[in-house]
């Protein structure tokens, strides 16, 4: 009943390797950790005999090593390591694989040869930066903290906002080389269990060697790989994540990444700014409508110029047509090439401004604005009217709060540009139909991406184009099928 062409399930390989559980010995461990210059092996003479410590010194907090391990062992009068190190959280080890995993994660391995016991305790160096205001999702009002690269700290920031036991976390390790820790968070009483199952399966199915960023994790979890549209919301704001959790969504935090992933999302979430919920509803609604209009304007303004000047010039009143004809009369290029060259130039300027140092940015503004803008008009390469339209279109594209969406606009602009040059205004409409058809076909964690428009959930429209008064948004979004529909305790 879903797709017209369902994919055939792939047959699993019959010869899957069995997990090897090799017993841990001193010799095997040394062999496994050979050629590691930062590996330390210390023989510590204690009252209970000689104890060997294995650790990678670049990963270990040396001060804590003395405090938690060396000192207690030196003053130990008991016969077992576990009893001496009561304050350290130690785990007993039995196999080589486990030992390897622990040591590279920043644990110290303790070997008691007299009793042939192995233990591990985590003493990882806490590398973290201070919590700073968000850079990509800045707000005037509202919280000023953003995620950092330490996953535990990120979890704390969310937990502090949602101090309930129903907020559950599940940890996964992905990446055969990076062994990246991914934490899935959800509120048990609210989030639809179906989403949790889907998400869990998706994480477990990830098979890759290294993950450097949350967007890479998202790429492996997305339902549709060949689309420019993001299927997870990447946010650096803990308040946005806790709000999503409260609505019944799932948040994924990836270690060493200052961005959280939120899913399932819909297309319209990408237009919502955290500030929408801090401003008064009329103002927030107005700004949201402006954002949607800007997106539409950024997509269609340049293609519309090409369509009108190439095919449908009769659509304009004579006065406007005169202006257009006059500005275009001496241009050597057709409208399509004029637009293509200008849009590519604009993209070059945009990309350069991102890569350049801040101080050079001003120079870029001068070059972009005066030299490329004014001089190209004077040289007769581009019309005045077109420069105005490109300017409006470029500014309008920045109104979309999601950075990924800003990038998509450029791509879609080119797509519509080609269609408009071929078929004029109907070409733009056909292009829009294709884009919408594509969006209708997308899903995020198997949930419809274009909801609540289609499938239609009229109740969710209270927080769609218009952000209704907070006091009236009493229900959670229906498209998320939350376990608890109401956000309030008492209903009339």
């Amino acid at each position, binding site marked *: *009943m*879903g797709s*017209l062409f369902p994919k055939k399930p792939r047959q699993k390989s019959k010869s899957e390797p069995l997990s090897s559980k090799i017993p841990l010995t001193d010799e095997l461990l040394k062999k496994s950790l050979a050629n590691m210059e930062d590996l330390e092996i210390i023989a510590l003479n204690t009252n209970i005999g000689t104890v060997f410590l294995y650790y990678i010194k670049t990963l270990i907090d040396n001060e804590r090593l003395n405090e938690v391990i060396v000192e207690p062992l030196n003053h130990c009068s008991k016969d077992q390591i576990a009893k001496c190190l009561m304050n350290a959280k130690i785990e007993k080890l039995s196999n080589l694989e486990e030992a390897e995993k622990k040591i590279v994660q920043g644990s110290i391995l303790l070997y008691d040869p007299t009793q042939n016991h192995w233990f591990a305790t985590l003493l990882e160096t806490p590398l973290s930066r201070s919590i700073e205001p968000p850079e990509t999702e800045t707000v005037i009002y509202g919280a000023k903290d953003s995620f950092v690269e330490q996953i535990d700290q990120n979890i704390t920031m969310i937990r502090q906002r949602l101090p309930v036991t129903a907020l559950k976390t599940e940890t996964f390790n992905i990446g055969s080389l990076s062994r990246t820790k991914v934490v899935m968070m959800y509120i048990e009483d609210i989030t639809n269990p179906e989403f949790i199952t889907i998400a869990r399966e998706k994480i477990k199915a990830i098979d890759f060697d290294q993950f450097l960023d949350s967007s890479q994790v998202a790429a492996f979890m997305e339902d549709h790989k060949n689309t420019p549209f993001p299927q997870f919301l990447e946010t650096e704001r803990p308040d946005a994540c806790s709000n999503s959790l409260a609505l019944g969504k799932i948040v994924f935090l990836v270690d060493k990444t200052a961005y959280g992933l939120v899913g399932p999302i819909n297309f319209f979430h990408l237009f919502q700014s955290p500030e929408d919920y801090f401003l008064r509803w009329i103002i927030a609604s107005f700004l949201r409508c402006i954002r949607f209009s800007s997106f539409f304007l950024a997509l269609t303004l340049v293609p519309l110029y090409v369509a009108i000047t190439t095919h449908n010039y009769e659509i304009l*009143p004579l006065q406007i047509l005169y202006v257009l004809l006059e500005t275009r009369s001496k241009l050597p290029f057709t409208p399509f090439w004029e637009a293509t060259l200008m849009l590519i130039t604009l993209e070059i300027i945009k990309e350069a401004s991102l890569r350049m140092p801040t101080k050079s940015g001003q120079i870029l503004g001068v070059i972009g604005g005066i030299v490329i803008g004014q001089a190209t008009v004077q040289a007769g390469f581009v019309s005045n009217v077109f420069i105005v339209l490109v300017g409006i279109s470029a500014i309008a594209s920045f109104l979309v709060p999601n950075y990924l969406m800003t990038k998509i606009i450029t791509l879609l602009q080119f797509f519509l540009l080609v269609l408009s040059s*071929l*078929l004029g205004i109907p070409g733009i409409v*056909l292009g829009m139909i294709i884009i*919408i*058809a594509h969006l*209708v076909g997308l899903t995020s964690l198997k949930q419809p991406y274009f909801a609540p428009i289609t499938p239609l959930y009229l109740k969710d429209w209270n927080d769609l184009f218009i952000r209704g008064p907070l006091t009236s948004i009493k229900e959670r979004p229906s498209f998320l099928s939350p376990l608890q529909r109401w956000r309030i305790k008492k209903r009339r």
Partner: protein
Amino acid sequence: MIIVIIGIGFVSQLNLFILSKCWKSRFLKDGAEGISKLFGKRMIRLYAFIGLFFIFMKMAIFTIGYSDIMHQYIFPSINNNWLILFIFLTSLYLASKGMEKTFQFVVIVMLSTFWIIFVFIPFLFAPMSSIHDLYPLIPNDPSLFSWKGVLLIWSSLSGPEYLIFLKPWLTHDKRQFMYFTIGNMISVLEYLLLFIAAILFFGSNYLSKTLYPTIDMIKYLQSPVFERMEIIVISVYLFYIVFALALFLLFFYGLSRLALAKWNLQTTRKGYLFCAAVILSSFLIFYNFLWKFSYKGFWGLDLEIALSSLSYLIIPIILWIAIKRKEDV
């Protein structure tokens, strides 16, 4: 004609009542399999062959008709084959998303096109309009009555009979008759508004002389930014055309699988594309060898009106009788 539109609306309502009765049948719930239980596999194959012809004619006429309007009003210089191709490819893409997603697209179509009806409201208050143009409401002169007009309106109201085959994809709601009634009422009111606006704007004498009165009316609308509003309105109608074509493409594909007795096999990309290639080439042949040369006296339009009227009339009745017979057994 006003009273005729209202009258046909009532008859259509009766037809929809029968359809809503059929809707409740358990046979329709399982789609093709359920219908095959209702009629038997041999009969289903026969009906499928006939249905293919009905659907092809419907698709061909509204697609080529629309591209012809586009050619006439927006692109007189372009080769119409290109327009047909682009519209078809867009529909093909939409249909490839599957029946469920294609059907979900209806909301977008509704949002994109519903406002067009309001464009016609100013024509009701045009300075030259005279209320006398609407008289006589009940014609006593038989020469004023046109069977062709009746058939045209009846065929324009057709379409809900295809909904019955979409039941597996739609919510099995008990209030189906209410939804049918709302849809029928909106359609009748829309035709009434368009007819009244056209007759008030053109006058009864001149109205019959225009081929596309509603589009010609929009030509007279002006705004400070756009002078030829009909270019925008016609273009926006693409949402409706693409959606309808995509839906009928899927119907055609489904029916051809029934006709070839392949309903138990999984749908394939190859089969779908082959089906699309057959339809597209038929469209192009249809347009280049039949439509282009004899548009005004073309029999295809009359045939399509007759087929749509027939399908709207007989599908509910046949279904109802078959269901009654099976349930009695």
